[in-house]
């Protein structure tokens, strides 16, 4: 297939938006970045294949979402469905499209979620408005925390935390080893190095058993941590309930629950968690995140979705965070810039530790076409696939 990714996502003027139709969904498969990623000791390091999803409208406007990992085989599998559901549709029918893509939010995956995000980018561009304003702005800025990958030594965490504080961050989340004693060691060292200058969180990504989780929860309570994330398997509802009851430190979880929106009440009704997390790029994109935020609002608890990933994944979640009240923090991957490949615009923390919403339309962060062209290994169109 010939590369035709030169069509710019600028808004032609004047734009009629009452009869826009989607004409194609395209994928640029990109060269994996050199960075090897690790989040837990028992998970092998990985290099992922990123892809740029492009929803093309008949007036030339494109909605984009670049994600750091979209399995190429699954993308190929998904092409016929994406063609059937999206081509010929009005991009403003996002709730209808969302249900068609996910079988009424009953079958979730990375690809359809990223397509939903790209659809919202298209909607924002057609309206010449940033996503958080289309969704209904609640605020223009939100506090950010720096969120790490896994390192080999305690020293590396401390150096990174100090560097983040320099950059303006006043909150810092550790992805450590996923081993209770080693994690307590790194958390203790961080608190010592930083004093009270930063709020601290810890995320072992579901690595502990119940006993290990209680030990770490007690230690983090003593260290005055801000939250304790995903201590045990998210599916272990009773284990979470018990942790939430017994320890003063707030428990944040439910990110890896694969059934998304409709599993949230199980956790909220039973008081199993203090705040709820979601991965919008799994649970059905912005359309689904908006609903989960509303559920949490109804239960009077914070909805703290991740925003860890490429600039576009960050931006999609930022859009939800800025259009809701019940979220404390934006999650900023550090060292800042590690997932910014392919972008002309990026998100950075301000000197006061906040991030500010974008002013450009849609997700608000444009790709760098020269870089995308250079990184593109393969291109797929659902129309010509």
């Amino acid at each position, binding site marked *: 297939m010939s590369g035709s990714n030169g069509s710019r996502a600028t808004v032609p003027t004047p734009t009629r938006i009452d009869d826009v139709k989607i004409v194609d969904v395209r994928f640029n498969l990109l060269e994996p970045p050199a960075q090897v990623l690790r989040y837990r000791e028992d998970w092998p390091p990985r290099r992922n294949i990123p892809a740029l999803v492009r929803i093309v409208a008949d007036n030339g406007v494109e909605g984009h979402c670049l994600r750091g990992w979209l399995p190429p085989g699954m993308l190929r599998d998904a092409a016929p469905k994406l063609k059937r559901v999206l081509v010929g549709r009005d991009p403003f029918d996002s709730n209808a499209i969302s249900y068609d893509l996910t079988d009424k939010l009953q079958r979730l995956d990375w690809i359809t979620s990223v397509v939903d995000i790209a659809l919202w980018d298209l909607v924002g561009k057609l309206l010449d408005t940033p996503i958080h304003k289309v969704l209904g702005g609640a605020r223009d800025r939100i506090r950010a925390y720096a969120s790490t990958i896994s390192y080999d030594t305690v020293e590396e965490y401390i150096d990174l935390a100090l560097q983040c504080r320099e950059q303006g961050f006043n909150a810092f989340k550790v992805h450590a080893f996923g081993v209770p004693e080693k994690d307590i060691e790194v958390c203790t060292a961080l608190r010592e190095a930083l004093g009270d200058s930063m709020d601290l969180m810890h995320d072992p990504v579901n690595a502990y058993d119940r006993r290990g989780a209680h030990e770490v929860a007690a230690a983090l309570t003593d260290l005055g941590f801000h939250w304790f994330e995903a201590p045990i398997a998210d599916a272990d*509802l009773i284990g979470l309930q018990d942790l939430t009851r017994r320890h003063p430190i707030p428990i944040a979880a439910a990110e890896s629950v*694969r059934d998304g929106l409709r599993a949230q009440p199980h956790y909220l009704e039973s008081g199993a968690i203090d705040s709820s997390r979601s991965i919008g790029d799994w649970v059905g994109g912005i359309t689904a995140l908006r609903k989960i935020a509303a559920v949490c609002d109804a239960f009077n608890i914070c909805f703290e979705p991740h925003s860890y990933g490429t600039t576009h994944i960050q931006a999609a979640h930022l859009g939800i965070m800025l259009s809701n009240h019940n979220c404390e923090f934006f999650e900023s991957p550090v060292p800042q810039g590690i997932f910014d490949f392919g972008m002309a615009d990026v998100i950075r923390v301000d000197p006061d530790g906040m991030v500010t919403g974008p002013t450009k339309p849609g997700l608000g962060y444009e790709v760098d076409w020269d870089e995308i062209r250079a990184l593109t290994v393969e291109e797929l169109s659902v129309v010509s696939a």
Partner: protein
Amino acid sequence: MKITDVRAHALRTTDQLLQFKEEWPARRIDSVFLRVLTDEGLEGHCITWLCGIGEASDAMPKLRSVLVGRDPQDVEAISFELTDRLHFPAPMWSAADICLWDLIGKGHGLPVYKVLGAARDRIRAYASTLMYETVQEYVDLALACRAEGFNAFKLHAFGVPDKDIEVCRAVREAVGPSMDLMLDPINAYDRREAIRVGRVLEELDFYWYEAPIADTDMHGLEDLTRRLDIPITALESVHDGLRVYPRYLARHAVDSVRSIGDRIGGITVMRKAAALCEAYNVKYEPHSFGTTLVQAAHLHLMLAIHNCDFFESPVPQGLLDWGMADTIRVGPDGFVEAPTKPGLGYDVDWDDIDDRILSDLDSPVVFR
């Protein structure tokens, strides 16, 4: 015994489009033949049909890196690793688990259910349909199944309340009390529709009422289970599998639990789910709708537990039997018998497989 290689082939299946309810479009089936090879020359097999060809290709590097060099008998360790400690079960990890059990059985010269610890040698079967266009087709099929020996019949109807009521009435009228009947609308109804259909199924004396509403709607299921006398069975589409079941069991939100073993982690995880259900004194009724080897994997589990009433037999019989030398068929008294060959107990037909191979999934997928 050491695993030396893992191979997978995309298979041509059948030109027939399959449909299970109106709101799902009829679809062509993809199918992947997974082979786990060993230094003793034995191979473990599974033909899975729940994941796309691309998804299967994506899974190959991890399958190779986890399996090669291992002893198939370390299946608990291997399956835990593939599913990241059951956090992320998926069709290809489940297929690999089934291959390992096939190898374990073949290594011992025993059918898998004997290795698991047999509870019985046969189990009653129900015929399980596709979706058809007309009521008459369901009636004709039910009568044909009865003639083959089945005395239980499950409809995948339209997923539309009024039409489903109509077809259930017609089938009950046609077969009288000679068959136990079940309805499975595959999560299609809302809560109100579910009650309405359930009342009719009670009147028609159906045996169970499956997946009436979204499986995630725990309160809705709880309410249906309380209000209706007909047993509610559900949870097949709960994607996280084992660790989600306790919350439903503790609230008595379902009367029996269903699983898709070929998605939630294979025989290893089904064995745990069966024990959990037994502890709650609840029936564990996993599906067995799939290829012959998928049927076989579930059959072995069913024969190694007490708390399962039925084997699910896709009808018309033979529908999903591509690539096989041996197949599973109902007997004249409505039962299926345990296989006698070792492992899963049903051999592939290598000539037929050769004819069906579309591609080898050994290299990364390249877009065409």
